[in-house]
């Protein structure tokens, strides 16, 4: 039922784990759903938590001045693409 790719599924699992989203199953996060504001409703504290987890898991450092950081955080799909690209 989920159309997550394997890499997106792994990232979804990471998000659920680090953000205390224990009432959501990782496969419930739709790849194109907005992570912040509407949709999943994450906030700026979560952004920092995600950045830290991604740095530890994949060695990808996220920086605010990068073009595209904001776009990367839009959805599960864009975040995964960003991580894949910078690995």
């Amino acid at each position, binding site marked *: 039922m989920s159309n997550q790719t394997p890499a997106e599924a792994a990232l979804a699992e990471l998000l659920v784990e680090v*953000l*205390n*989203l224990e009432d959501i199953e990782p496969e419930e996060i739709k790849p194109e759903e907005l992570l912040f504001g509407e949709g999943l409703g994450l906030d700026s*504290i979560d952004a*920092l938590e995600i950045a830290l987890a991604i*740095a530890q898991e994949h*060695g990808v450092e*996220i920086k*605010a001045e990068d073009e595209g950081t904001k776009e990367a955080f839009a959805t599960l799909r864009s975040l995964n693409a960003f991580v894949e690209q910078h690995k």
Partner: protein
Amino acid sequence: MTLATPLLQRPAEAPLAWLSLGLNGLPVPSNGQHISNSQFLSHVWRVAKTLPSENYAINVCDNRYLFLVAAWAVIVRKQTNLLPPNTNASTQESLSKLYQGSYIIHDGAAECSDSVDAINIAQLDWSLSDHIGELPQVELNHAAIISFTSGSTGEPKPNVKSWRTLQESSRINARYMLPNDSDVFYHLATVPGQHMWGLETSVLLPVFANACLVDARPMYPHDILSLLTVLPEPRALIGTPLHLRALSGTQKLTQGSAPSLSNVLCATAPLDQALAREFESRFSTSLREVYGCSEVGSMSVRRTAQTDVWTKFSGLNFGQEDGGKTRVTADHLPASILLEDSLNMVNEDQFKLSGRASDQIKIAGKRGSLFEVNSVLMKFEGVQDGVVFFPPQDRPVPRLVALVCLRDGFSKDALREHFRKYLDSAFVPRPIYVVDALPREENGKLNKAKLQSFYKSLSVG
């Protein structure tokens, strides 16, 4: 007796600010741009001249330097800065209704309400020139700043800071927060200038003491590190446990390449001692944790890596009230303040913190009330029974938990949407569990321990 003091009270030769971001008419080289006292004053006058003859300026400038210039220009014009608890346009509207004769002063970064007059100071000419003429004097009782705390429902509560309060509290803060008074410390902060913690350390210390303001507000570890490598020494980093933890955990540091940090200041949430120790050793620095509240500002300090005992700032008096509460008084504060936390005095000047009144919660540096959050839950028409509580959590940013029984036809998503509408995002419960019934006693009460174990059984399964 002096009834007015100068607008600027700091060493004449020390740089007032160091800019990393270019401004209109002021390109900034890659190694930064210093701003002198006199250049700052000329900027203040330039902004002051453009301000309308009103009473209140809602100061939402994002760039820390522009925020300070705007704030001081507002004070020069004998007006009052309003510092909203968030950057929502709706908050600006409610403030402008509460404070007659207010306008917004911004730098193009924040969302601004369409229904309030706004001035964008980023468009002004920021080229450098020296201020010529007298240094303006400010009356000690002038209401220079009103800062607002949000509370869980976002209802802003005002804290008036007179010029005297700003001046005296900054002198006290400098004594306890700066390692010595002969060097100028470059104060890089991860927190905004509008909130009390950032205001006191990253904005007021540079104007009232021997510190230099840095315009940027980096959040991610990479951004903090790259700024630190170009920032002149000695450097101080001002942040929160969340930022320090992220910085300490970044892989960029594993090569042993930590930039030198002479001083670190941390506040807004309890700092873990193990993290304090790790941070101190990674950066070969000393980390001071500060304890305070919005009404008073910073009140005490400790070297968390070494001790759990707080040392009270001199100039503040802690009086014990009936029921174990503590009341703070000081010559420079307009009124006494009853603290939410329970303090155990070790001796006259030192204490340990022993928790806060059970209704009071603090998440991500924001203070709120469980009672208020529960009232918001009960306003949701689809809720049959439910409770929001704050279980003990081993997490850097703990969150509230909601357990609810919903009526047919109402979804968890709709409840989450309802919470988001009425609550600051930090207080939106996460997780929300939909259950068949709550473990209530016969008398209808919820036993704390039972609630905990019920919640545990849900989160494990």
